[in-house]
């Protein structure tokens, strides 16, 4: 009995902390910590997108031939398409597990802002898919003979672009909660086209030694508008399941 009691206490400890009117940042930290622990306990969550990204990258030289000039001119597009698809791969898992085991209900009944919950979920998704892709993209750039000068713009554009994709992906995941994973991809992909166009433009412009800062600013602006707007709409979409 006693053992059960302490077990119960450990389990409910984070929930007890929710009740104390902690500041928003504390709340963000709690969810981030919780979700990152869950993600790192299961290595497939962050390895699968990474491996998927590298496999897709490898397919292009195999399909198109190994000529250096061809590959380096196609590299921006290839890396970007692979990054978009890889970041959509794990999208379905953003809310589905918490929805199934009921923790999402707990998050919503706690008096903390649900906007922060969604934002934390997006951050975790980016940390376990976007960040590995970002690191792997340098490897991909080497494989595809992208010139060294284009590395920085590529990393910058991927940084902004994959973050935006995580935001969009969260909305897609919330809208298709409990449905097939492919549905959320189909919902999200048409809306990711500006990101794809601007991201590849950044890398292509840097290949041609042109000024690419305008595209980066535009992507940053999309991210800045996207964080409040898409997070709020995602909250709205999640609440659909609690009518």
């Amino acid at each position, binding site marked *: 009995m006693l053992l059960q009691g302490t077990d119960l206490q450990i389990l409910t400890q984070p929930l007890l902390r929710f009740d104390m009117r902690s500041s928003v940042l504390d709340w963000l930290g709690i969810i981030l910590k919780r979700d990152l622990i869950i993600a790192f306990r299961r290595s497939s969550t962050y390895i699968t997108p990474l491996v998927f990204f590298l496999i897709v990258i490898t397919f292009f030289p195999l399909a198109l031939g190994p000529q250096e000039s061809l590959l380096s001119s196609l590299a921006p597009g290839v890396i970007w398409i692979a990054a978009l698809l890889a970041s959509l791969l794990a999208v379905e898992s953003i809310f589905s597990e918490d929805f199934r085991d009921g923790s999402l209900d707990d998050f919503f009944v706690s008096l903390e802002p649900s906007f922060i919950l969604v934002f934390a979920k997006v951050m975790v998704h980016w940390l376990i898919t976007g960040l590995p892709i970002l690191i792997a993209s340098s490897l991909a750039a080497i494989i595809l003979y992208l010139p060294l000068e284009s590395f920085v713009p590529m990393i910058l554009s991927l940084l902004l672009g994959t973050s935006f994709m995580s935001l969009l992906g969260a909305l897609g995941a919330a809208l298709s909660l409990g449905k097939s994973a492919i549905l959320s991809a189909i919902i999200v992909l048409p809306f990711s086209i*500006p990101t794809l166009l601007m991201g590849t433009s950044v890398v292509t412009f840097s290949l041609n030694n042109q000024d690419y800062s305008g595209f980066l600013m535009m992507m940053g602006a999309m991210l800045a508008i996207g964080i409040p707007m898409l997070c709020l709409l995602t909250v709205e979409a999640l609440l659909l399941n609690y009518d």
Partner: protein
Amino acid sequence: MGSPPLFYRWSSKIIPWLGILAIIFLTLGLFWGLLIAPTDYKQGDVYRILYVHVPSAILGQSIFMFMAACGLINVVWRAKISGMMLKSAAPIGMSFTLIALVTGSVWGKPTWGTWWVWDARLTSTLILLFIYAALIGLYSSIDDKTKADRAVSILSIVGLAIIPVIKKSVDWWQTLHQPSTFTLTSSPSMSPEMYQPLLLCVIGFYLIFAFTLTLNLRNEVIDRERSKNWVKQIFVN
């Protein structure tokens, strides 16, 4: 017109008028455009597909704006009828976008020599078609209809915000890659004899949209409220 029974009664009066007006405008516009308007000195009679192509392209875009407005109303005020409107408008908008793409490529074959060009306008219309498909796909995946309405409303709001960005980025993308060897209808200003029938056609297409939307919406209202008393009263008597 907010409540479903009120809308139903009100719309049954307006439907014949919409239909008659649409027929008048379309007959006039198409007759004028296809038979009377002068032949283009450059393209010959091929250009006459414009009287179908341009209105449907305009409709494809403005129906999306209409849907996004409905979506916003539905999310903010939870007005039931706006959700149904959104749902009923989606297939119409998608059809017009598809018509615009198909007539465009039919027009492109004799004038440009190819069915498809990666031109900025064509590309963004194609993306619009995909967005319609995403909205309809999302709607059909959710069983509960009011939930589906709100889900689609949320997505259409994102669409409203992102469509200008898509247009702009496609423009940049177009200038980044080789400038298209073809130019869309190089004549900068249309002569009034060609323009006036086009205007009639556009109005006619809007009326057709209003007509089909009202029909769709009536079906939707009856379908969703079939267990309500007012529906029973209409159909029992």
